[in-house]
């Protein structure tokens, strides 16, 4: 556009019908009016600015968008934000301490070089964290850890160091 051109006018949002979505995100109550079809992943990223949740496939295979819905690891790309009404959502931004100190799972990832590009990492961490936090018994054998990690794709590390990081996290959390 030239300096002399008059800036064209475009709408700021679509004409989709909007619904109110009211939920808790990382401990804070949130209420927004959004398109009925907005995916939870887009809601977190673009409505709330929590861009740590990544979007890798939008069909539930890669696991990059994994968040906790009512404490359970879930695909935010396969959940409509309106479906999350009344739910308690936790994202990667809520995992480290207020001062930025890493959670033991994050610390283990760092120590074990369990991330490279870091795109899959938030989803990996949220998945692993949910399994450490739930009451169900956790199989921390080599094959148990592989099973735990299956459902999250990583294209960089070859998983070996992520498996090591889960073992290390178990030590740091006193679960080993």
């Amino acid at each position, binding site marked *: 556009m030239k300096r002399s051109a008059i800036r064209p006018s475009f709408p700021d949002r*679509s004409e989709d019908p909007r619904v109110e979505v009211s939920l808790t995100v990382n401990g804070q109550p949130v209420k927004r009016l959004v398109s009925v079809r907005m995916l939870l992943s887009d809601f977190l990223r673009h409505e709330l600015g929590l861009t740590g949740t990544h979007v890798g496939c939008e069909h539930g295979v890669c696991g990059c968008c994994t968040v906790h819905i009512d404490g359970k690891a879930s695909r935010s790309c396969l959940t409509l934000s309106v479906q999350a009404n009344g739910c308690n959502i936790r994202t990667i931004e809520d*995992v480290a301490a207020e001062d930025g100190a890493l959670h033991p799972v994050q610390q283990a990832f*760092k120590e074990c*070089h369990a991330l490279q*590009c870091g*795109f899959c990492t938030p989803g990996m961490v949220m998945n692993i964290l949910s399994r450490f936090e739930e009451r169900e018994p956790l199989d921390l054998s080599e094959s148990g850890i592989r099973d735990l990690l299956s459902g999250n794709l990583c294209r960089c590390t070859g998983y070996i160091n992520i498996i090591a990081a889960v073992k290390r996290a178990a030590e740091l959390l006193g679960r080993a």
Partner: protein
Amino acid sequence: MSTRSFGARIERNIDPKLLRGEGAFVDDIPLTNPLHVAFLRSPVARARIRKIDVGAAKSYPGVAAVYTCDDIGPLDMAMPLLIPHPSMKNPKTQRPLARGEVHYVGQTIAMIVAVDRYTAEDAVALIEIEYEHFPVEMDLKLALQVGAPLVHPDVPNNLAAHFIQISGDPDAAFARAEHFTKVEVQVDRSTAAPMECRAVAARWDAVTGELTVWDGTQAPISVRGGLASIFGLDEDKVRVIAPDVGGGFGQKVLLFYPDELLVPMATMQLGRPVKYIEDRQENFIGSSQERTQIHTIELAALKSGEVIGLRDSFLHDTGAFIPYGIAVAQVASTSIAGPYRIPNIWVEFKAVYTPTVQVTPYRGCGRPQACFAIERAMDQLAEELNIDRFEIRRRNFISEAEFPYPREGLLFADGLKVTLDSGQYGKALGMADAALGGPKFRAEQEAARAKGKYLGLGLACYVEGTGLGPYEGGHVRIHPITGKVYVNTGLPGQGQGHDTVFAQIVADQVGVSPADVIVVEGDTKAFDWGVATFASRAAVVSGNAIHKAAVTVRQKILEAAANMLEVDIGELELRESAAWIKGSNRFVPLAAIATASNPLRYAFNEAAQAATQFAPASKHDGPPLADGQAPGIEATEFYSPPASTWAYGVHAAIIEVDPQLCTVKIQKYVCIHDCGNMINPMIVEGQVCGGIAQGIGGALYEKLEYQPDGNLANANLMDFLVPYATEIPPVSILHLETPSPLNPLGVKGVGEAGCIAVGAVVASGVEDALRPLGSIKIRHVPLTPRMISEALEQAGV
């Protein structure tokens, strides 16, 4: 120096922010009211576009603009051919938006810009388009035949390029050989599938005339140069930033993808930030792919097993376009003799257009195919001559005394002569043998067979020309306020840990902790000389450039500190972010040295005040800066490699095959790896492991299933099988460090290494496992259960 950083397993500087979800990938960059792009992509492989009606799409609420090839002015052109080569007769590159004809399923035809991606996708569905369908030929061999349907009407027989290279005297070698082994092998089409798909966002500032582009690319400087030239802007007014990038593996080194031109165009026309976030389906049908090659390789040997000649003729599928020239095929053809002496080589390829996504380098770039060809042939030769597979390789390896070992007549992808520079191939092979238990394994294998279990040993060796030129640069500066060290280079990272290994290189020179070295890369405003991240070259080329800059900075620090402390340079040592007088407790911090080296009027912080306690950093009369002197402590240097440096490795595995279920389980995988001096072994292992996992994908899982009509049947991650953790076996990596004689750091590249040999290892192991069931040859990867089932059926099992 207290502790040496170079060579140490140092945790990565970049990790905390990525772990906290504080990365900055393209789609994370906050833009005010951005518009969003979606493309209409061709649903058919070959057709003429009879009519496009965008009326309904244009009037759809929320749509800002709809573009076809008629609406993009000077961008309606064939995009650049990046690497010309005389072997290409009529090289074809894609146009940003199709004009007249489409050439593959997924080709961009129209672009919608709308208030959000949801709306943009709605509008794509409203474009009405009429096609006149053309027939297609998907089979590589048939595509070359007279009368085959053409991908481009003016390219006869779909032949994109034809090239022959010769080293030595292959005819004479074949004339005197005592034994010949010939095999045909095939590697299928795959794709990089980075976890972050490609992404471009752009903002035009009409007041300053500045275009800012965030591009998930491996080549921001090249993108910047191209954009400035195509849009007629000053290079200085175009800033291209490759922020955090979620994996590249070669797919993101191509320029230009249509969106990389059209998104900047749209933001300049519409006056709003515009972004295109490629989705996974688009990544499968729109972004570069690689791998399909069919090799017919023949070895001429003596009865001793010594291979004296090699002929290889292969077909290379280049997809519908050839923007990267013949790079992939050329790398394959120059890697064909592997680590073997084989002094006489004749290698020919034909690059063939097919109505599929264009082919450009994907991690490995022709090397996995070449390795598969030579290694399957070596196994076959071993079998025919009844020589052990380890032994036949040992007899043919280039020995340590023979380096540098030139392959006269073969030109590598950098246009320079192939010369293998260093290595200990025999030692690596011995380590692999030992790691799998040596002769003990044969006993295990026998015992397992008695129990109905089929174990096999897989083996393959590879070489990898790395660290290609032409050059990269490095800039190192000591920050006056903090004393921290800033490092810039032009090529960006996509997860390789550049920020840490470059920090390690610098830390040793200037005596700081690597954590205090801040590396900024991939931003043309920070450093804008350089090429790109590809060909396992960052550590070699940028690493050595940064090293040179750090050495210069070290000298400047010492000179300034000597003046400030009023001692000789020889009495100083650099450690703990300060210059110390050896054997004393007198020191001057780097922050003070950097401050004192900048003759500024104001002492606005502690470092500046501290600096005043010392003598001046520069001893001269006259104005504060002497003639020819620059303020501050910084340096920029460049490194241009004389030739590629050749890394190598030996991979081996124990593989179990279940003939009833036709499943393959890798029980144990060992990798002996040599990339010269290692800057950070932890990162090297990470690169190798990741490469092996990708190689396992290519060996057993990942195949793009193009249908006879040109449609891609598995353009999603449900059906294109990137392995999960459950599919990757335990891997042990053992290192050798044979320094490269070609560069000051003695390093070789490692980025692509891991993936090269895996297909050959798996095929070799499966063949060995099934040997008791008959002569079952594995000559084609990825190897699916169905293929094993069919092979067993043919063998009557």
